[in-house]
């Protein structure tokens, strides 16, 4: 066989492998999309096409409240994590080796620790501190596991920035605050944004830590779904997930395939 033929076969095998993995990743998501149009409540029988679950969704106050809680917690926790985390990253970047590695070690704890241990330990702490379990404890917990994602996204960008531009701004009479926001911040902005997006995603997808740190009477989408598992999930939940998924997919496709602006 010629080299060209081998290369062709190799490419076919590679494409086949990629497709298999994609099917594996997206089969459950497609399943939910199909179930959201299934007029039978059963998860295994097709009862005909319906849009009822989508209209039901918007009139279900439990789902809408849980959605509101989920989005609010995800937004607030990522925002606060971005502020605390970016400040910490700037500080850590200017430190010597030893304190820097101690702080990065602490940063790694929530990332490497098991969610169940983080969740339980936070629950014990909230009870010991006398903070009643509810919206505020979920928020604190989410900020806690979000900060490391922000730091890890911002740090590489900070390392790339040139220290002398900041010093030049200071020499030209800028205060350290304005030098930071006018000179350093634009350079690290992509890291800050991807940290925010990552934190938002993680907060949205979290179940285990929320499960332990929420009190009775407040639900996020995850905990609502978990409480419905035994009784059977309302198909409106599939409808909601499908809407969220399509919205994010469209958003990502637009940002990825939009013509790149010239620098």
């Amino acid at each position, binding site marked *: 066989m010629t080299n060209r033929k081998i290369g062709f076969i190799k490419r076919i095998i590679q494409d086949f492998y990629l497709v298999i993995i994609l099917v594996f*990743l997206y089969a459950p*998501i497609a399943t939910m999309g199909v179930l959201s149009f299934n007029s039978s409540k059963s998860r295994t029988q097709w009862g005909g096409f319906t849009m009822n679950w989508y209209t039901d969704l918007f009139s279900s106050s439990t789902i809408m409240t849980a959605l509101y809680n989920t989005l609010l917690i995800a937004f607030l926790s990522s925002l606060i994590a971005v502020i605390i985390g970016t400040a910490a990253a700037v500080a850590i970047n200017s430190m010597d080796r030893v304190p820097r590695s101690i702080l990065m070690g602490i940063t790694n*704890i929530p990332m490497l620790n098991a969610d169940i241990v983080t969740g339980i330990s936070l629950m014990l702490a909230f009870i010991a501190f006398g903070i009643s379990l509810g919206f505020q404890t979920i928020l604190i917990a989410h900020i806690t596991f979000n900060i490391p994602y922000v730091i890890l996204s911002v740090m590489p960008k900070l390392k790339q920035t040139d220290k002398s531009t900041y010093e030049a701004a200071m020499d030209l009479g800028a205060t350290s605050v304005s030098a930071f926001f006018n000179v350093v911040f634009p350079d690290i902005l992509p890291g800050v944004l991807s940290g925010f997006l990552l934190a938002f*995603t993680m907060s949205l997808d979290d179940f285990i830590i929320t499960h332990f740190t929420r009190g009775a009477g407040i639900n996020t*989408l995850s905990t609502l779904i978990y409480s419905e598992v035994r009784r059977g999930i309302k198909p409106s939940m599939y409808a909601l997930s499908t809407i969220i998924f399509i919205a994010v997919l469209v958003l990502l496709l637009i940002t990825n395939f939009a013509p790149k602006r010239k620098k």
Partner: protein
Amino acid sequence: MNKKLLSGPYLMWMIGFIIIPLALIVLYGVTDRSGSFTLANIISITTEEHAKALWLSLLLSFVSTALCLILAYPLAMILRSRGIGQGSFIVFIFILPMWMNFLLRTLAWQTLLERNGVINGVLSTLRLPSLNLINTPGAIILGMVYNFLPFMVLPIYNVLMKIDDNVVNAARDLGANSFQVLIRILLPLSIPGVVSGITMVFVPALTTFVISNLLGGSKILLIGNVIEQEFTKGSNWNLGSGLSLVLMVFILISMALIAKYDKNGEGTAF
């Protein structure tokens, strides 16, 4: 203004919500309900029920970690060979499913695996015998691989992308074939990503209680289920904390591995 002061809020936050909570778990783990010192909570891991749960968790998480590695490494290699242009898009492909709730994604596997579910439906139209898929250890492994595969792919992909093409070309110029390039060049250089991928899959797989709950039925108990029940149903927090301390031994081992093989943090997933 001293820049280091900026880490103040962060330090206070981490001490308040990471260090102190972990200390509390240790405190609960080595005391009984009345607050006096005891090792009984930790030693209870040796009782038959708990030891069986821990052993099964170790076994299932080991198998799923191995499967993730076997699936992810070739995948990362293919993604590398396709060049950098598609890079960020590939990452999105793996992050995107996370926007659909983790519980729902796992529940969807229930629909696929059930006795009269989608997979068995396809088998029966092909006139093949139906398979008993749901509520088996195999279903739990599938759930683990499905949920944690991105955490293996992304670190390996990130490390492989950083390897200079010239290094590979140099090896080829010196007469290495594809297999030798893989074994002598790519594999050793990608160890930080592999190690970080292994720990990022092994730890959540070892400690999960949700996947075993949804795909394993109520009969298969993993160590995560035992701990969760102590905190929600059994309300013996001391015992639950003691068992968590046992789990933390494995977590500490993975942290040590990361520190040893991934000193510069090259193998991060994101």
